[in-house]
């Protein structure tokens, strides 16, 4: 179908997203986004040591509430992450996602950041759980995401307050 807003690749991932759902007993769950802006993503990872002793993300799933771009970027990041070591996964950038989708409309670029944030959070949780050192960049990013979550919670509460009279 002709749609000049999204690339055919984006529409393909949106209509048939890969790896959706959740993982029971996941090793890490990353959450990013907020309901006020209308994009919320949860990324689940299962990590296993390969025969060289490296930690490999063997399974990854997502659940996303959001627009076509948010669902497509969720699908793409699961493809990119699957089978990668933790270190490799941490090098994935929003540019990698946008490349796979052959471009995103400028206003939708933030959706690719959402996916990267959710992945970072999932890995952060995994490392924390296994008492492993957390790279400085990841720590900084985690603090930024935590802060913005608090920020949005406050905005949400204000919203509830403002609409209470209804």
């Amino acid at each position, binding site marked *: 179908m002709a749609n000049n807003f999204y690339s055919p690749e984006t529409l393909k991932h949106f209509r048939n997203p890969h790896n959706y759902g959740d993982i029971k007993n996941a090793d890490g769950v990353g959450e990013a986004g907020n309901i006020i802006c209308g994009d919320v993503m949860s990324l689940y990872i299962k990590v296993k040591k390969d025969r060289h002793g490296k930690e490999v993300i063997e399974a990854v799933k997502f659940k996303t*509430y959001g627009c076509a771009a948010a669902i497509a970027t969720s699908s793409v990041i699961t493809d990119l992450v699957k089978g990668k070591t933790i270190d490799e996964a941490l090098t994935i950038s929003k540019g990698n996602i946008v490349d796979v989708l052959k471009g995103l409309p400028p206003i939708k670029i933030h959706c690719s950041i959402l996916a990267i944030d959710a992945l970072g959070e999932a890995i952060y949780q995994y490392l924390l759980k296994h008492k492993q050192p957390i790279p400085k960049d990841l720590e900084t990013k985690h603090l930024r995401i935590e802060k913005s979550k608090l920020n949005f919670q406050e905005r949400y509460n204000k919203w509830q307050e403002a609409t209470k009279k209804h």
Partner: protein
Amino acid sequence: MVKQIYLDYAATTPVDPRVLKLMMPFFTKKFGNTMSLHRLGQEANNSVEDARKIIADFIGASPEEIVFTSSASESNNLALKGTAFANKIRKKNHIIVTKIEHDCVMESAHWLQQQGFKVTYLTVDKFGLVDPEELKKAINSNTLLVSIIHGNNEIGSVQDIKKIGKICHDHNVYFHTDASQSIGKIPINVKEMNIDMLTASSHKIYGPKGVACLYVNKRVLIEPIIHGGGHEKGLRSSTTNAAGIVGFGAAVDIFNKEGKKETLRLKGLRDSLIKKILKNIKGTRLNGHPVSRLANNVNISFIGVEGESLTMELDFNGIAVSTGSACSSKTLEPSHVLTACGLKPEEAHGSIRFSIGRWTKEEDIDYTVKTLIKVVNKLRQFSPFYHGK
């Protein structure tokens, strides 16, 4: 070949073939400028005046009270800015609008605020209705104009404009209403309903795009916002869009003959669509007023599903609708109308407007509901917010 079901008549309508037929000669044979003295010009002018009379009669106005413009946006800009500036000499600098106006009224009001005018934005209840008592309280001795949308373009709620107009007149305040969505669906008589200015648009009623009008009561002090050759009694200069105006008139004329019956039919389809969605899909809610509602408007929130995704999925299945989701807007903010009605973010983002029209059939409603069940279930599988509750 995928079906094509158009349920976005509130965005725009196709031109009725009967309207197009009457317009055609004005592009090639009757192309004269209405300001020209020769026969070609006067012939075009006569047809424009015929259309003016049809439209004036339709709303109970006099032909000289109809000003043709290029769009409802222009009409609304003219109503607000034109009266604001013309009445500066009366030291009236306060305007009242609601929080659910169309962007063209909202942005005009914001702009007037920047120019030093005072603006009050009235709240609405959860159904999108204005409380007349709130309006009374908001009016003060400096109030010049009240502008309130008749039938809301997003949620379809219809205001009691007769009562609102009465309050305005009791306080000696001008009353403007944007009737872009309601004209043809609700009978309007500007004199009986205490309306001083009214906006109506051609492309919402099966006429061409690029033409609309503003009814301006003779007693209203107003200035043009487009200056030039003095067309439209000096209120709106520009070479007259004769073909468009003839089409607008023809479109209105069809409502003279068929409007009543069509509205009844639309109400039946509307209620059927609402009932079938609410019954067959869990986690849905109707937005806007259940009864005081435009005959062609259905606005529903699907919990756990984001509106842009749903719009896209429906489009893949051949169904064209609109959404109030932030993701579909340029600002990434959810619709100000839904927010004003107190919807939670997750409800506002999951809202879809279905607007039916002249060529919608009962089988289209059934196909839409069937498709909705399928795609809503599909999208909810990806959603972290829906667990079958």
